[in-house]
């Protein structure tokens, strides 16, 4: 018998390319079905197919595949965080103090509400505090993608995006600072207790700062060419994501800082508004499919009551924070409530933070995951729908194209 050596050996090895393409197509089709049949955001479809293929479903997406797809997920997350950072307008916060006050109140009340609600349900203070800090965050990916899908524009949209950025920064900084407490709990030395958060915060900020400075300098050199500037930004984003991971820094904080720098420190207006989100679309589909594939619906059943308490407390904190002060910052009556609803989503960011702590003390991370991730499972599905509702109701969605 002749050996057909030119044929591949069975079983076929997993090719990252085939994987990426397949996940993209699976997400695309489900997203489109959900959009056409249920008139829901396409993200809901990405999440559903992820759940179906992942740990909670038929298990096609396992840890090995997750590792293979890691690079795509990281790039997707990096693009979103950078673009969100670009939306955070420090000038605006300086000019409209009431808006700044709203943001502060919203973050503080969210933390307080979740913390005390969890305490009532007998969660230890340390877990309650970390979970509450994570609860401040609103998913940048979900809000940005729904905004993009609806082509939404207006005061609720702009304010929601600025609040999402602020929420994310506050959540990361707060959980990082709480690391000291966790280290203390696990009897790590004082040096680790203090130096770890310090390294994470200053390192991530510095990385974002350097990337931002590099972007502005390169943009000046390249001149006003949108396409060149887009490639330059993509390059820097990927380098920044990679460096943050390699240096064990916070990708989230570094990339947000990068975006904020680019928006607020570009005094000569050298940078153009390159459309990162449009380019990133293919990564975002895979990002959502993969993130939800790692979620376990079993968590939801295990943490059932706690998940509901967590979500309700979080919503109360955010709503009260926003509705009490938003009026003074000159937005239309009624938009404050919609703004609060638009901050419902929680997903990628919180998963990243949970996994960050998981890496340090697996046992702590696992117990924290039981509280937070069960809420994330629910909000992955409810979040996009809430954002779509809020933006449509506010009349800020673009006209639908037939």
């Amino acid at each position: 018998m002749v050996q057909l050596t030119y044929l591949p050996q069975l079983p076929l090895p997993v090719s990252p390319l085939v994987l990426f393409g397949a996940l993209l197509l699976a997400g695309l089709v489900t997203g489109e079905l959900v959009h056409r049949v249920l008139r829901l955001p396409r993200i809901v479809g990405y999440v559903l197919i992820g759940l179906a293929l992942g740990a909670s479903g038929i298990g096609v997406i396992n840890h090995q595949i997750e590792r293979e797809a890691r690079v795509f997920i990281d790039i997707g997350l990096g693009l979103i965080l950078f673009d969100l950072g670009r939306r955070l307008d420090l000038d605006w916060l300086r000019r409209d103090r009431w808006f700044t006050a709203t943001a502060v109140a919203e973050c503080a009340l969210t933390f307080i509400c979740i913390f005390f609600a969890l305490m009532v349900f007998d969660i230890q203070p340390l877990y309650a505090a970390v979970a509450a800090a994570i609860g401040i965050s609103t998913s940048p990916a979900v809000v940005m993608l729904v905004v993009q899908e609806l082509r939404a524009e207006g005061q609720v949209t702009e304010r929601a995006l600025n609040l999402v950025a602020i929420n994310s920064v506050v959540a990361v900084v707060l959980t990082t600072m709480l690391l000291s407490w966790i280290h203390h709990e696990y009897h790590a030395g004082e040096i680790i207790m203090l130096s770890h958060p310090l390294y994470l915060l200053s390192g991530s900020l510095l990385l974002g700062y350097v990337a931002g400075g590099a972007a502005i300098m390169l943009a000046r050199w390249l001149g006003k060419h949108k396409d060149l500037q887009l490639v330059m930004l993509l390059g820097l984003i990927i380098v920044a994501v990679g460096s943050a991971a390699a240096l064990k820094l916070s990708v989230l904080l570094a990339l947000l800082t990068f975006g904020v720098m680019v928006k607020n420190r570009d005094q000569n207006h050298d940078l153009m508004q390159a459309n990162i989100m449009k380019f990133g679309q293919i990564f975002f589909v895979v990002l959502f499919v993969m993130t939800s594939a790692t979620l376990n619906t079993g968590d939801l059943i295990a943490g059932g009551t706690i998940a509901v308490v967590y979500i309700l407390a979080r919503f109360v904190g955010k709503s009260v924070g926003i509705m009490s002060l938003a009026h003074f910052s000159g937005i239309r009556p009624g938009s404050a409530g919609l703004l609060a609803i638009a901050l419902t989503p929680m997903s990628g960011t919180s998963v990243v933070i949970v996994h960050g702590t998981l890496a340090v003390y697996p046992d702590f991370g696992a117990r924290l995951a039981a509280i937070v991730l069960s809420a994330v499972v629910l909000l992955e599905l409810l979040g996009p729908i809430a954002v779509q509702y809020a933006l449509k109701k506010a009349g800020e969605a673009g006209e639908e194209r037939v």
Partner: protein
Amino acid sequence: MNPETLEFRSSQAYSVGVELELQILNCRDYNLARDAADLIGLIDKSKHPGEVKPEITESMIEINTSIHHEYGTLAEELAQIRDTVAQAATRMNLRIAGGGSHPFHKWSERRIYPTERFKYLLDTYGYLAKQFTIFGQHIHIGVPDGDTAIYLSHIFSRYVSHFIALSASSPFQQGEDTAYQSSRLNTVSAFPLSGRLPFVQSWKEFLDYFEQMRGYGIVESMKDFYWDIRPKPEFGTVEIRVFDTPLTVDRAADIAGYVQALARYILTERPLQPSRDVYALYNYNRFQACRYGLQGKLVDAYRRRHVTIKQDILETLELITPHAADLRGSAALAKLTADIVADRTDAAWLREAYSSRGSLNDVARMQSELWMAGALVN
């Protein structure tokens, strides 16, 4: 307005009022934003001079001054309204810009402001309604009666190229340099009821014409005529609508000062009689002004000569100087004269901004920084 009572409401001669249509920009890429409703809501929360109103798409607002008798108070009120609008805009992280067109917005992305009239216009005119996201200045000049309004409208038509060249500030449209100084008027010309007043000689003749058109079912009110210069009976004014919104309110006030003095010259000296020849040459002269601005050619129907618009304006400025002095508006004319002699026009400013920066986003940003003046500093 009730069409049965198209009565001409008398108003004080040479009183003047200004309307400006303005651009609302976001401050990310300085494209047009869609926040007119929120912005108007915020502005109306506080007491402010003049009026602020929605326009056909959500990216526009219109500001109106009250009635003035001299240039100084008009300029002052315009500056006050500008400060109010600019401060409200910064609170919503928006920018406001002058200029007859937004340099790079895409008309297909515009949304009609949700009122009955604007929805009707979209139904009637289709894409033209969205393309109508262009920004003009309207100047009202008070007249005592309808006959005077008709006379003044006809003589103003002789000066239409002045009005266009003085305010031209729409060289860019949809991301392209149009080669025009005012490209905005080309968009207006697409409307079937645009154009000019018919050659009627009295208010009564005009009413007959209006009734005839209404009988044909073409119009219901004066609002349906998009004429360059039209009588406005319910205000008791002649309204000139060919101006692009200038880049600053100062320039808008200066032009109003020019028109006011010109009106006084026309009505007190009655130097010209309405002439069909003016209208025979009208479209040619109008095109020259749109395309070339101050350097355009003006064919003078009365003196049967060719002259540059710049030259004709400078000569007119001399003629009307005594009238400006009587109206206490000499300052406006002095500023205009200096600008015209030096060829400082808004269209030139915009092109200069583009060639220095190489990006229309920057042009829009600089446009807004110029219009908002001090509001962005604090």
